[in-house]
């Protein structure tokens, strides 16, 4: 996309709001990610983090506010396929559930080839080479490329989902709890892979997670959400070591670690989630 000035942010969100009936899921969220940047959105269930992500990728319609990806708004429901295809290069998403993120009847190599054929003129041998290259980029080999999703482990499926998203060379990759369903030792692999990919390509990350503990390993910046609102934002290093908002502090202090003891916040409060 040579015609785009590179100074435009990969993502700019202003005044984002979403209500479901009387319930306010997301309330006035602003955020920005520079090209190649990485922002973690951290929150617990009901914080609005996933709804925010879904509005950013266009799976949910905002009640108010704007989402600009590389300076462009979403093409909308009635947009032509060609328009949506062009927009696909702005943002892609990796979902939480590795078991439902892939078509179970399609070999994983074929699923990458299908997307490449949709977006490029590659056919035949060059197409196969590009598929192999993508698989290699996420640490999978030819044998795994010829397999159906059910033959792969959760971590491997998540690698395929990442490869598929990267196939269109998006400017922004939204990772919605992308490692939450994986085993601890496999989580570390995927986080390392994501770090490598960001170093090699210019893709920016929006990393949605409930897990404050892993934020530092993928993201430079962090934004903490609580009940639909942003309660704190800043460099990951600062927010983790010296949180300002009481909620962030409580969130951090709830993560089990060396020397940690679980504590009751209030002995007489039963109405909290």
């Amino acid at each position, binding site marked *: 996309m040579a015609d785009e000035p590179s100074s435009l942010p990969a993502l700019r969100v202003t005044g984002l709001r979403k209500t479901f009936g009387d319930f306010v899921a997301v309330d006035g969220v602003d955020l920005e990610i520079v090209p190649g940047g990485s922002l973690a959105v951290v929150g617990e269930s009901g914080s609005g983090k996933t709804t925010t992500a879904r509005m950013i990728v266009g799976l949910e319609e905002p009640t108010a506010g704007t989402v600009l990806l590389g300076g462009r708004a979403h093409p909308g429901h009635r947009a032509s396929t060609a328009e949506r295809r062009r927009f696909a290069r702005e943002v892609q998403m990796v979902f939480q559930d590795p078991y439902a993120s892939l078509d179970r009847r399609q070999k994983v190599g074929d699923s990458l080839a299908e997307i490449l054929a949709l977006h490029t003129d590659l056919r035949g041998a060059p197409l196969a080479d590009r598929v192999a290259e993508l698989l290699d980029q996420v640490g999978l080999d030819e044998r795994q490329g010829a397999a159906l999703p059910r033959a792969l482990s959760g971590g491997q499926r998540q690698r395929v989902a990442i490869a598929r998203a990267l196939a269109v060379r998006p400017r922004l990759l939204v990772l919605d709890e992308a490692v939450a369903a994986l085993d601890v030792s496999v989580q570390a692999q995927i986080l390392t892979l994501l770090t490598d990919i960001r170093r090699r390509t210019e893709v920016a990350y929006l990393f949605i997670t409930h897990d404050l503990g892993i934020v530092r390993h993928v993201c430079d910046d962090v934004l903490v959400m609580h009940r639909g609102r942003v309660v704190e934002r800043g460099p990951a290093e600062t927010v*983790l070591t010296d949180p300002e908002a009481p909620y962030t502090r409580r969130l951090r202090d709830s993560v089990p670690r060396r020397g940690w003891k679980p504590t009751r916040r209030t002995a007489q409060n039963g109405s909290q989630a």
Partner: protein
Amino acid sequence: MTGSPPLLVVDDLRVDLPTRDGMRRVIHRADLTVPAGTAVALVGESGSGKSMTARAVLRLLPSRARTTGSVRFDGSEVTTLGAAGLRRLRAHDVAMVFQDPRAHINPVRTVGDFLTEALITTRGVRPRAAEAKVTALLREVGIADASRRMRQRPPELSGGLLQRVMITAALAGEPRLLIADEPTTALDVTTQAEVMAIIDEARAERGLAMLFITHDLALAAAVCDRIAVMYAGGVVEELPARHLHERAAHPYTRALLASRPDPAATAEPLRAVPGRPLSAFETGPGCAFAPRCAHAQDLCHTERPSLSPAGEGLAACHFPAADARVTPQPGARSTPHGR
């Protein structure tokens, strides 16, 4: 540990489960001891067999499962218990808290009915007394408006509250051992801290022993006295919780620790182990962790190590990390290598 026998002893447990392709081994060797009043964690990833081990203790495995080995509760063998003895064990001696409380509680009956039913029917407590007892317990686990909650039904309660109801149900039976199978995995992290604190307090007050099943090493170390790490259907290391971070001897335990560095510590790098956790039936003749282990040598691929003393615990490793052995163990293999 002399005098009376430990409350729970699992000795050389093996479990095979029926699948489409015949019997499959899910536990190839589990050894475990829970002394009265102590908390022991069983830590592992998917396929490690940690939940199966817990279920085997209460004989909650599928009906066609095949089990060998011994499970002794308070000195008596569980594996050969008759129906009446098994009922007694489950109703009086051991209580269980599961990961998903919603799946284990009838959604159309009130919380009060659920909590008092077992007391009234199996213990012959008068309804009025049973109600008073569980109301007090609900207050103890931090549910202030207990009498209102008693009239509510499970769908009206949040996950964290429902898990506290399950803990109340477990405590109401006045058990001697609590088996908690990932009780906080489905909860938010702030709720997890709260629920774990409640379990901790209730245990301390009653001298209740606990077998705590989890995938989270740091959480296990925070609430337990000893930790047993399982991998691919076997216990690979057992050690005092306070030694976990400095003196873990097994490469797998260390790898797990390195996969989850302290969130607050600055710039501790993430070290990933290659591969994925295996299930017991997928392992070869050697050490189950050998294919993923950075220190594996020829011996590791051919001979399965058994649990042997390492530091103040046990490790099933041919080449346990050197700094784990504070005093050289006479029988232990010793090979000089770093980490």
